[in-house]
């Protein structure tokens, strides 16, 4: 299991702010994501039609989540009827064991992997290695971070924070390739190396972008071709997915492909979409002999139990919220301390790994709402963040200094006199250290942080209420 560092957000984010390379990565490459999405949408849709697509998708997802048991049962029966195996894994350890059992059964020595965020939750690569099996990431970005032994920086572009020089260094070290600053050359190096793997791997592990209940079909949305390789070349294909990635009907797929491709990579559609419902038929020329689908809980029940948080299970992992989040765009993915960064990560990570440890994450947002504006399935992310803040406080896990400050605020806001008294007190404390009506350095619990970078105004001598009473005519009218 990857280490959960959600409690290190504060320090990790400050570190990221001072990391020139991370800041570079969060600039122009991301503008690309943002502009790409906008152009791709505007090329084919008006704002109204795009919004109505989002509403339809939100409704389908909501219905799917409300009937998750029904649809999971349908997926199971259909995939098995197609000749595939279906496993229900309670948590990471359970899922890892299932994979190991399948690997052992088929005497697997090498595994090729295409993108699966759930498999990162599981830490499957480490587990395979510990059991003498060599896992190779085939998604170029995931391959790079696998070599670098890092967690993904972004949902869609996991290695976006790496410069081409850094990638070259990694390839030189692990693949013994010649140094190069040419990105195309780097891709060729990776391609050749991975092609060897495709040809010899015993088992392919993929994720699933969608799972269609009606027909028992796993849908993969990719651009490189590694998704197809992983699910076509080896003898055994294992698809691992969170249990929420379901869609009811095959006729829902068109809508979701349209939303996902534009929201994630600014494309009308990705280069490849694979539709996998089971193992190869006897007459097929190639393809895996065995197909396994592993549906993983790993804490998702906690999201399901909460009527508000349940909406988070609609996420189709497009990354648009990350791309448009002004906080993410300043600190990047590693600061969030686990598999999922950005607004969706700030909701899902605490619930799946522990609210107390991750208690800073739901607060790491100004609730500006830019994420909600772009979410293709209309998740009200700020609402969910607020809900988690409330939970943290109600559970007694809030920061005690903040609790104290809020208590004082609460008390001061009871009456006009108390409010004015509180303001007068602040003025008393601040005036001596102020210059020109502003304070440059405030040492105070909770609010002291203001003066890191900003001057703080000393409250005026006369409150508006007094001015109103004395100069503006007073009265309640």
């Amino acid at each position, binding site marked *: 299991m990857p280490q959960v560092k959600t409690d290190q957000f504060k320090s990790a984010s400050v570190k990221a702010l001072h990391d020139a390379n991370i800041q570079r990565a969060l600039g*122009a490459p991301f503008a690309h*994501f943002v502009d790409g999405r906008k152009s791709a949408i505007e090329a084919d849709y008006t704002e109204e039609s795009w919004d109505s697509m989002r509403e339809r998708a939100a409704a389908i997802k909501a*219905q799917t989540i409300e*009937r*998750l*048991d*029904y649809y999971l*049962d349908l997926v*199971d029966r259909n995939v098995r009827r*197609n*000749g*595939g*195996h*279906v*496993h*229900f*894994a309670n948590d990471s350890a359970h899922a890892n064991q299932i994979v190991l059992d399948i690997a052992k059964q088929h005497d697997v020595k090498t595994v090729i992997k295409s993108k699966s965020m759930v498999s990162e939750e599981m830490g499957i690569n480490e587990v395979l290695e510990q059991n003498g099996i060599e896992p190779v990431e085939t*998604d170029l970005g995931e391959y*790079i971070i696998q070599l670098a032994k890092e967690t993904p920086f972004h949902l869609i572009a996991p290695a*976006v924070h790496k*410069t*081409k020089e850094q990638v070259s260094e990694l390839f030189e070290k692990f693949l013994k390739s010649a140094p190069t600053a040419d*990105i195309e050359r780097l*891709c060729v190096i990776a*391609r050749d190396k*991975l*092609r060897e793997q*495709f040809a010899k791997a015993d088992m392919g592990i993929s994720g699933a972008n969608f799972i269609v209940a*009606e*027909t028992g079909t796993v849908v993969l949305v990719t651009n*490189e*071709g*590694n998704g*197809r390789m992983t*699910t*076509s070349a080896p003898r055994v294909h294992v698809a691992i997915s969170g249990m929420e990635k379901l869609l*009811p*009907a*095959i006729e829902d797929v*068109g809508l979701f*492909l349209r939303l996902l491709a534009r929201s994630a*990579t600014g494309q*009308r*559609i990705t*280069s*490849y*979409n*694979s*539709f996998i*419902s*089971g193992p*190869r*038929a006897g*007459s097929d*020329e*190639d*393809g895996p002999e065995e197909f396994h689908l592993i549906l993983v*809980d790993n804490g998702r*029940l906690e999201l*399901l139990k909460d009527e508000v948080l349940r909406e988070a299970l609609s996420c189709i992992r497009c990354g648009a919220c990350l791309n448009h989040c002004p906080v993410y765009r300043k600190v990047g993915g590693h600061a969030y301390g686990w598999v999922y960064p950005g607004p969706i990560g700030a909701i899902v990570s605490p619930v799946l790994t522990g609210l107390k440890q991750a208690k800073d994450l739901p607060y790491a947002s100004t609730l500006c709402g830019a994420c909600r504006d772009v979410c293709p399935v209309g998740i009200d992310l700020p609402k969910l963040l607020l809900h988690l803040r409330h939970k943290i406080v109600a559970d007694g896990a809030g920061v005690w200094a903040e609790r104290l400050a809020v208590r004082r605020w609460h008390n001061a806001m009871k009456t006009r006199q108390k409010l004015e008294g509180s303001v007068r007190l602040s003025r008393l404390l601040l005036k001596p250290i102020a210059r020109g009506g502003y304070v440059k350095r405030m040492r105070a619990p909770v609010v002291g942080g203001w003066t890191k970078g900003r001057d703080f105004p000393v409250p005026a001598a006369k409150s508006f209420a007094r001015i109103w009473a004395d100069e503006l005519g007073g009265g309640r009218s």
Partner: protein
Amino acid sequence: MPTPVEDPNKAAFLERVRESLGRHSPILATPDHPTLKATLPRHEEKVRTILGKTEARRVANIALLVKNATEAAWQVHQAKTGAAAAGVVSDIVANSGARNVVRTSDDLFKRVDVDGALRKHGAGPVVLASNRTRRKSEIRRLAFGSELGICGVDYAIAETASCVVIPRRGVARLASLAPAKLIVLVDESQVLETLDDFFALMRFGFLTQRARTPNYYNFISGPSRTADIEQTLTIGVHGPGEVHMVIFTG
């Protein structure tokens, strides 16, 4: 092949899901979902409409396909006859400098004599199909060793410039994946307008001929690409980087 056994953990797993949703008994009725609810006669009607409109709008669909395919970095060629199409393929192969060429064994190759056209310039393509003399294990070796693949498609969707390829006897998955260059041959009658049209047809097949519904099919909507290094676009990573679409009238 016997149906795989149900996971012994399934019942408990689903029970926990149900409880989390505040329910105690499973849902038995089909949900009120717009397309799931559509029974066969209604769906059949829908499919008839789609086929009718596809035929009626053929010219417009093809124009849309050409436009979208070009935008998606396909190199698009159009030919009026099967023979002309074979000529186009032969030219592409000659220009590509590819020596090891493979093809699938679609019916279309009976109408488009690619073998003949290529043999004029050298060796014909290797057919990636197993038979008495060629074993399936050879398919992989031949595919990975090839430089150019020639494939038919089952459908071409104009909305997204997606070619649908369904693997089966004579149609290996690797034929359109392993070589660095790919030529797909699209008969005008195979062109559909939208993704929804395609999925409606697939559903119809599923409802009426479940046993013959393919367990695997792919959309190929352009060249293989990645922007994983510094968000700089590179074409041709694990799949073909150069893709040609030859649209012809059979």
